[in-house]
């Protein structure tokens, strides 16, 4: 409940993050919209056979496929970079229960800049770990029957996500050295040390994905008509993500390299 309260208190940050997401998505899709509109000129699809019209358009303008892919990849990469940079700031803003957190924009900014390098470094270690583990796990998971593979795959990725959260907390709040691969690895051991909070984090993560997946399904099924619902789902998912981070912050310090709680404050 403490995590929920702190996340609720940071609602402006959640809204800001959400709007940022929407802005990136809007800008990313703008190119696609423009591309299609230019190709259509003054014409309108002649009937409601949307999939056929799309097939005809892609056949006539095959570069549209590249345009869509480039849009999706660049916006995702942009989102990844932005979130890597903003994650420490958000952790500092949420703070650990019962511990002081930077007050005022200047203090917050200074603490953020101080922890940014380490946070980016541990994120990089996690990225490498994530790639390695996903490659290894996919070999094993894909050999399993359909639904089991999906569930196991989700658990693997959720584990990676939560471990990253904990490593970031260790760097930003507890002062662990982000450049050390041990800090990244300790994120995984911390998951095992706090099983209840781990379960809460994974549950929140899964719920967030479920919400986003529901929105995505609605968008695909309706041919884009459910975009407002997708936006609403993203808002909820963002908030759930904040709660997950707040829970991660409440996991007691574990890293051998950490300076101890509150040292950053």
């Amino acid at each position, binding site marked *: 409940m403490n995590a929920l309260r702190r996340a609720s208190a940071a609602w402006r940050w959640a809204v800001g993050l959400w709007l940022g997401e929407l802005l990136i998505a809007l800008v990313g899709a703008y190119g*696609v919209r423009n591309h299609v509109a230019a190709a259509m000129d003054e014409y309108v699809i*002649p009937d409601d056979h*949307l999939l056929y019209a799309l097939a*005809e358009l892609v056949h006539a303008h095959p570069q549209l496929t590249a345009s869509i892919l480039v849009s*999706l990849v660049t*916006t995702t990469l942009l989102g*990844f970079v932005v979130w890597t940079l903003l994650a420490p700031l958000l952790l500092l803003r949420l703070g650990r229960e019962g511990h002081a957190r930077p007050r005022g924009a200047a203090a917050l900014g200074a603490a953020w800049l101080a922890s940014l390098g380490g946070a980016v470094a541990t994120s990089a270690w996690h990225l490498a770990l994530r790639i390695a583990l996903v490659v290894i796990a996919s070999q094993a998971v894909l050999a399993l029957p*359909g639904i089991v593979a999906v569930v196991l795959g989700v658990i693997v990725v959720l584990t990676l996500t939560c471990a990253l959260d904990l490593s970031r907390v260790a760097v930003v709040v507890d002062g662990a050295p982000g450049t050390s691969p041990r800090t990244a690895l300790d994120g995984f051991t911390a998951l095992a040390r706090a099983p209840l909070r781990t379960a809460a984090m994974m549950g929140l993560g899964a719920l967030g994905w479920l919400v986003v997946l529901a929105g995505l399904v609605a968008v695909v*099924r*309706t041919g884009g008509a459910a975009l407002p619902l997708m936006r609403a789902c993203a808002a909820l998912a963002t908030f759930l993500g904040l709660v997950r981070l707040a829970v991660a912050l409440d996991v007691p310090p574990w890293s051998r390299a950490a300076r101890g709680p509150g040292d950053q404050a």
Partner: protein
Amino acid sequence: MPLHRGRTSPLRLISSIIAIAPLLACDPEVPTPPPVVAEPTAALRPADIALPIPEAARVLDWTIDARLDETEHRIDGHARLRWRNTSRVAIDRMPFHLYMNAFRAEDTAWMRDSRGEHRGHSARERGAWGYIDVTGVHRRRDRGDGREGDRVALRHVESPPPSSDASRMDVELDAPVGPGEWVELEIDFVTKMPEVFARTGYAERFHMVAQWYPKPGVLHPDGTWRAHTFTFHSEFYADFGDFDVTLDVPADMVVGTTGITTATTTEGDRRRITARAEMVHDFAWAADPGFLEYTHDHEGVKIRQLVLPEHAASTGAHLEAQIAALDSMQPRFGSYPWSTITIVHPPSTAPGAGGMEYPTLFTTSPVYPLGVGLRLLGVQERVSGVFTTVHEFGHQYFQGLLASDEFTQPWLDEGMNTMSNALVLADQYGPQDGDDPWLARLGVHGLTSRDFVRMSQFDTATLQQVDVAADAFDPVVGGFGSVVYRKTTAVMMTLRALVGEEAFDAALGSYARAFRFAHPTGADLELALRDGLGDRVVLGHAAPEAEAGSAAGAQPTGTVTLDVAEFLEQGLRSTRVVDYRVHAIVNRRGQGHAGWHRNESGVLVGGDPPLRDGAEGAPAMEGVAVIHRRGDFIVPVEIEVVLADDTVVHRVWSGRTPTVTLQFDQPIARVRLDPGSKLWLEHRRLDNHRVAPTLVDDDGLSGPLGDTVEGATIALLSGVGP
């Protein structure tokens, strides 16, 4: 054959989705086979249903004894063939097809064309060759007293000129066979099955035994033989007759054959199965010890499915499709005359055997259950499996009953059958959301038969004409499927939409009933259509609303008719493309009367300055629409014009000039060509609907696509974000 693989990316995309579907699927349960329906006692349905059967169509009478060595995948056969000379001339030579020799070596005509590849399956992955070796041909002399006469050995020549291909054999008769006379031959042969990658062969213990015995060519009334060299696209052509076939197989084999089973006896580890088929032009059979048997009686037709447990879950879907096909095609094309239809589901180790038609028996393909992920996204499809069943059953009419020459005019069976499949779907599902039933669906948006047919025309519609022989299609060039199957469908469905469904269906039904148990040609079909529809069909008045006030002044005028022969000529024997485009919408100031004019006395009078637009007395705005026939296929097209006051005007344009200009005394809001989507032949349709430049709002595509991409981006950002 099933709908031929296209080369267009949307089709490939859909195929890919279907292909990966099994990866996400759970293992379905095997339904318990229902009690077996009793075997019919006659191969044909009662006379009042099967008739009319012209006696002249009965040319062959086969008795075949065959033994399967399942270890060697070898069949030792002895055939007695009675054949009747239906021509006007005496015959001293009989050509035979040895189709199985297509798989004998790399240098056969079929293998040269295919390079060992067929529908994505490769001989190189399979390995074993197949062949048929005729070891003896004898003529059985008739003593005239009812007793068998002498056996006279006949010379038979494999690979006769000019093609010198092993898929052909000539038998030289010791004495001519006169018009109307019968000759009886005894043929001994050995058939070695290939490991199946193209229709026929074996995979482990599964045997699909087709094109396995020597088949005589077809003698035309003028005494010329039709006996083509077997090439990649050529398929088959044969006369009607009766078959009594005894198969000696391992005792544990479950066997399905053309026709009915009349007796089964088991001795030791062997089983003898006797089958009879009447008025068919081929005999095929399948055997596997693991076959489960699902039977059903539908209005006196025994539907028998032979399937391994791995595909048994889809037998219900196939049965539904089979019944839908029967219920659609019988009223349209006449009764199904045979008492059985056997659906063979090849095992997953023998996909190359799937999707092929034989009389009263066909092979289908699996229904791929869609995985949770695809179903969640709203993906649905009616393509895999069940469409194969509809298509292959359709061949019972288009080639089984209307036994056209598949080599000379492949469009007459494959194309007309594919067209009839679209009708089966329409009959089965009816209009859905006011549209054709969908074949595949993503959420609320579907792809219909019309869409699939149009997509197949993207790249390959102009590679070849429809009405050419099968070997005019070079496998390297491609286009056989797009042109023969789907362009034919587009031609016929366009004609049907233009002239009216009722008239077209009646004309096609007349053709189907007139040529049952016969060898119709394309000319027969075209003549039947012209007879049924008339040479010229009135499609509408060019300017019916021209007198109705606001649309006055438009061109063209007069009645627009469709010349059926000209349409078919373009559709079947040219590579012309239907493509119309709204070239321009111009809303401009009307012509005023200001200025200097000479009066009756020749004196310049007036000189009033032109009035500003909108001023009292100023000329009203007028609208001009320019339609361009960009394609070279001339066919009338409907034009829908929406004027600024929301008046909707419909016109029909003959398309005989490169452009037509329509003029209205008020601005035009939008112009749409072919609003009823009748032109299945037109695949470039994004330029069919244009709005006035000042009224451009939503193009209908950038919004949905942009929104979907935006939604997907948000989902991805949520994935990498908090």
